[in-house]
């Protein structure tokens, strides 16, 4: 998401490609999350990895260039939203619902997706092994998969997309998602490689 006022001041269009973010006009103007603490950051790394056709070295190379424009890596995924909303940074690379929430609060933010595509993540729910209230937990999990529950996302402006096709979707989110190209993510591969991807980020991308 970008701060509309700052874009206008610098006469820039909202970034529409991962490559746009390398423009020196964004130097010191991008905030995004730290891969060691934030799942949002991992999604960003995956997005770039898949956008570069799973060429890990090129993806790392791109991130090194992106790093030169980054003002700060925040510890939480949505941590850049308030600073960007209050114009301390022009661009915040984060999850879409954070941007929608900022807009709802009245901040003039523009949401844009890179045309190469982005990775989407699915929120998980799990039953703890040996849980004390197994029956209740199962009931709860079943409920999260029901239309009843997923309709609540729209009703309460959570801005997340329901997984059920017939659940209702926020109109603004629905039109926004038409612009987004979602890249398929191999979750098993991610599970096996997460630690390594984060380590490469620490030891290659942010080391300067």
């Amino acid at each position, binding site marked *: 998401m970008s701060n509309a006022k700052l874009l206008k001041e610098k006469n820039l269009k909202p970034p529409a490609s991962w490559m746009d973010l390398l423009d020196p006009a964004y130097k010191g103007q991008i905030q995004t999350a730290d891969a060691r603490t934030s799942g949002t950051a991992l999604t960003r790394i995956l997005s770039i990895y898949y956008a570069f056709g799973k060429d890990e070295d090129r993806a790392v190379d791109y991130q090194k260039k992106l790093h030169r424009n980054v003002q700060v890596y925040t510890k939480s995924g949505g941590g850049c939203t308030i600073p960007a909303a209050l114009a301390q940074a022009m661009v915040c690379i984060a999850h879409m619902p954070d941007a929608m929430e900022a807009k709802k609060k009245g*901040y003039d933010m523009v949401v844009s997706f890179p045309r190469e595509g982005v990775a989407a993540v699915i929120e998980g729910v799990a039953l703890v092994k040996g849980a004390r209230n197994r029956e209740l937990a199962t009931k709860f999990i079943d409920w999260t998969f029901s239309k009843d529950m997923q309709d609540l996302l729209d009703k309460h402006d959570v801005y997340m997309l329901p997984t059920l096709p017939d659940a209702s979707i926020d109109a603004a989110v629905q039109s926004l998602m038409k612009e987004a190209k979602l890249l398929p993510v191999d979750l098993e591969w991610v599970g096996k490689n997460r630690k390594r991807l984060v380590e490469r980020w620490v030891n290659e991308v942010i080391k300067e």
Partner: protein
Amino acid sequence: MSRVRDPVVAPAAVLVWAAVLLFVLYPMSRLLVLTFWNNGPTLEAVRGLLENWTHRAALVNSLLLAVLVGSAGTALGFAFALLAVRSHLPKWGERALDAVVLLPLISPPFTAAIALIFALGPRGLLSYHVFGLTNVNIYGLSGTLLSETLTYFPIAYLTLKAVLANIDATLEDSAFSLGARRWRVFATVTLPLASPGVANAFLLVSAASLADFATPLILAGTKFPVLPTQAFLQITGLYDMRGGAALCFLLLVPALAIFAGQRRWLEQRGGSFVTVTGKASAATRVKSLSPAAIASLAVICGLVVVLVLICYLIIAAASMVRGLGADNSLSLAHYAHVFSGGLKAVRDTLVIAIVCMPIGGLFAVVLGFLVARTEFPGRRALEFAAMINYALPGTIVGIAYLVAFNDPPLALTGTAFILVVCYVFRYSLAGTRATTAVLAQIDPAIEEASASLGARGDVTFRRVVLPLVRPALLAGMTVLFIRAMTAISATIFLVSLDWSLVTVRILEGITNLELGQASAFSVLVILLVYLAVVVASVAMRRLNAGSLGRAGTLLGG
């Protein structure tokens, strides 16, 4: 001084020793075992850390930051102390100065750091809208240094104010009457007399910086990693308990060194620097500062006061409008949230703080009494051991508790009990110190009189000692309350869904785009703590407790 040998001293000592063993020494030893033992003694965890560039950088940065914040904070504290006690400030002026200066010290964590971004960031209120600067960088060393200096210089101010106020003004007057110029008097009389205080202030501020976890979390970024934040990330982000424990060890060594240095200073204080002689000294208007010097001090301190006030006005504003910067219409929505959805955290925090007060207060007084007035084997060792949790950064204590109390037989994490225990053993030291200070002024003959009339030790303690040390008990309980309201570095590892804390809610608010709610929580904490300080000082005045009621005793670290 005769020391009490009494049948009840032994059980009391055993009880206190047992508590300290279980809640101080046991978790600390578990931490060390985790770091240095893996089917045998090993250095691999520490070696592994030092192979990682971010951890190496964190070690260097932490030490650098501690020295820089220590120096800057002490210098600033000295300037404020000079202004407060050497420039004939009217009483209300001194009070106003105190009220503003103490603000950062009683605030919950994160507040100053967040406000500073909006005051001095690339589009900050001051940096951009007032001074027209663009491309200011608030993240990294510069921002962290500034934020920590503003947060911790009040510790130096409180320490140095007391030191300067105790320097007998006639000494400076004699130098003047011998013909010395102002600067010479300052450099050869005032400064040398204040130098132990300066050293102490430096160590206190450095220790606070070394332990600070909240400021770097917001402001340091990846370019300036520091140890407490790094240890937190290692555990909560990378689920690496051993790595976190090893990082704690790296942090533990400099923290203990600073604490040892500070202890040495406290023990030497009685040496050659005593200028309070008990002899009446002439009432004199000290003139050690020239009007020009006073004016420049006033300007420097004035600017700092303005910066602090702006930061807190930003927080106050954020708490009272719908969406700061987007919809600036007045609204009580954020406060409404604090008292509805946030009420549980407020209630939990208050319950824990209030439960801590009598337990910690009593523990402090009993410990102080045992240390100052009784004799039993291991008394000195107990005195030292009881200080460990206070001396070490909260991150270390929190991680040690997590290591020790997360599994049976002592699975205590997630309970209110562990939070209370954590605060009692971390923040009782102020009460213990106050107790020993009060007892030092009371002739043991009073207790001996009670004993010779046939009272047992516990009766003497309850009916003679306890009433006498009431001010210390009150001071200790106030400190516990303040710390329990504002602490985060240790307890962030120990909170749960069942027991949440306001400070944790503030962190969540900041990370979840709820700046308004986080600000409203912060304002509430600040008001409650101010109230506690005021109530405590009024109560102390009633008890004729003198210096114990001063903010310095309550907040001086």
